[in-house]
């Protein structure tokens, strides 16, 4: 069980666009993603929404399987820009890898 980390969204602002909360968890992006399965990229976006920083770091390997084809961003009905968020998370993970 993880506790919701209220400060995480602010922490992430330095690395990524602040659009994660636009996402209403429809899963369209995960359905269309040709490379990664198991609810990717929605899973990552949800972890941002609830501030589950540890979960993001645990599953960081998945991030590098994204090749930024842009399909998810193109299909997102909420303009949450999932592709850009994944890119931001890569920056965040790189910065936090050994921290």
């Amino acid at each position, binding site marked *: 069980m993880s506790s919701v980390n209220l400060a995480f*969204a602010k922490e992430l602002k330095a690395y990524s666009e602040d659009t994660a909360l636009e996402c209403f968890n429809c899963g369209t992006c995960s359905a269309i993603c040709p490379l990664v399965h198991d609810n990717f990229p929605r899973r990552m976006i949800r972890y941002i929404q609830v501030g589950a920083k540890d979960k993001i770091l645990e599953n960081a390997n998945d991030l590098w399987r994204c090749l930024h084809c842009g399909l998810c961003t193109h299909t997102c009905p909420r303009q949450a820009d999932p592709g850009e968020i994944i890119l931001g998370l890569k920056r965040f993970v790189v910065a936090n890898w050994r921290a």
Partner: protein
Amino acid sequence: MEEKKNKVGVYICYCGGNISDHVDVEEVRNRALKLPDVTVARTNMFMCSDPGQEMIIEDLKSGKIDRVVVASCAPSLHETTFRGAIERAGSNPFIYEHANIREQVSWVHHGDPATDKAAILIASATAKAKHLKPLAPIHVDAKRHATVIGGGIAGIKTALDIAGQGIDVTLIERSPLLGGQLNSLGQLAPYGDHASDILKELIDQVTGHTAITIHTNTKVEAVSGYVGNFSLNLLKKSDPENIPLTLDTGAIVMATGSVSYTPFKGEYGFGQYESVITLPELIRLLKANTSSRSMLEVNGKPIKNMVMIHCVGSRQIPGIHPPKENGTLNEYCSRTCCSAMLNAANQIRETFPETSIYEMYRDIRTYGRGQEELYMQASANKVVFMRYEADEPPEVSKNDDPDYPLQVRIKDGLTFNESLTVPADLVVLATGIEPNDVTNLASQMKLPIGTDRFLLEVHPKLRPVEFPITGIFLAGTCQAPMDSGEACNAAGAAAVKASALLSKGYIELDPFVAEVDTDKCQGHGACVEACIKEGALTLMEVINPDGNPVKQAQVTPAMCLGCGACAAVCPEGAIDINGWALKQYEDMVDAIVSDSVAV
């Protein structure tokens, strides 16, 4: 051809194939013609069409028939159509009988059995029709005055709309204030109007209206009478001597509204932790808030993290939610709380950007125009949504963190059913709507109450603001959860129904009521004991032809339900129901069991 004693005309409908695909209509016509009382039998593709009705009118005018049987769809659809045709022919509309050979025959039987059953139903209708006598509608003088019980927005709007039709209205409110629940609401979903502005406008109108009398602090003690002539006993709380006021009125509208659900102690920590409050309490806080800080403050404490839990006291499931002490469970959706929650969340996020909000829902039900936008707006305002299932609701408990006195644990469907804990300094429960308890009034007026405890209309689509008791209507949240706009819609509808009823100053009722044969009645009084409607039947002293006083039963036609309980018990056969006499039933049964129309 020998002259027949009775002259029944039988008209059989094809219903464009709906009937004739399964019933051999021409064969049925031939068999009907052989019935002893039938002088004319005709068929038509659509009896309800002008040519179909014209056949009836011509036969009546030329004297070929003096009773009419139409065999077609259900009487609820076209009985009035054919009665109208008879009236246009200059005859009495009550010489009419209906045989339903669509819903009861062609839609459920096929082939020969369908044809046989249609013929039998027509034979039975004919047997009944020959005893029909011309009747006159019951004429009841009606007081051009309506009474509205309940002074919430629905009651106020009903009173205004009836008065607008030139009919006097009395509006009765048991509390000291008009306005009902809107008094405690602030900015309303979905468009953000202030409840106080709306109320001020309406209350100014209603108090200024010369045709409207308002009684606040007043209870309705007793109701008696019937449509056009009801009588109410009112009791004013301010009256130290408790002298009841009597009010005569022609129609009654129930607008007794609802209350917000009160959680039981310990339900999501309610009554246990002071930081757990209900949605109405939050709305009151927002209304009173004058702070210009960037964080919402409650009791002087800034709120950093607020959790809102949906569906509290609504959508309860047997076996999952414990019933109340009186055994009730609210299985319905309260319909207003999702939008009211989102509306409050938006206000907070837009006024106090440093207060974070987590909304835990089962489903988001922003069902009406302008409401889905509230949900979109809440997402844009960075409200975090979490989803729980009814059987695993969020748990509110104490937190050791001094910054957040509470924590809410949720198994979150949106986070792949992982368990998450949200630290919180305020928890708001979306308490739903429950009807005000009006069982006493309802039982006096014989008004039906649904299993959900809300008052029950005749039909949810076809007669949505009427009770089965003529002259009594309903509007607003006493009927079902609805928002104030919908309550006003219902009020308008109820007002039009009541005004139309009272506009002429008299009312015509169907004459299918009990009638006493004064030659036969011996004054046993068995009927009076059997009668289920108080005031419909009384034993009266009358002077018989020999000049002696005797007791006899007397019917008050406007009160009689036409149920027939009296006819069943009279040892003299002295009381019967017009249009539905015992002799008619006997002849119908005879016609069904005889082989007069069998092949």
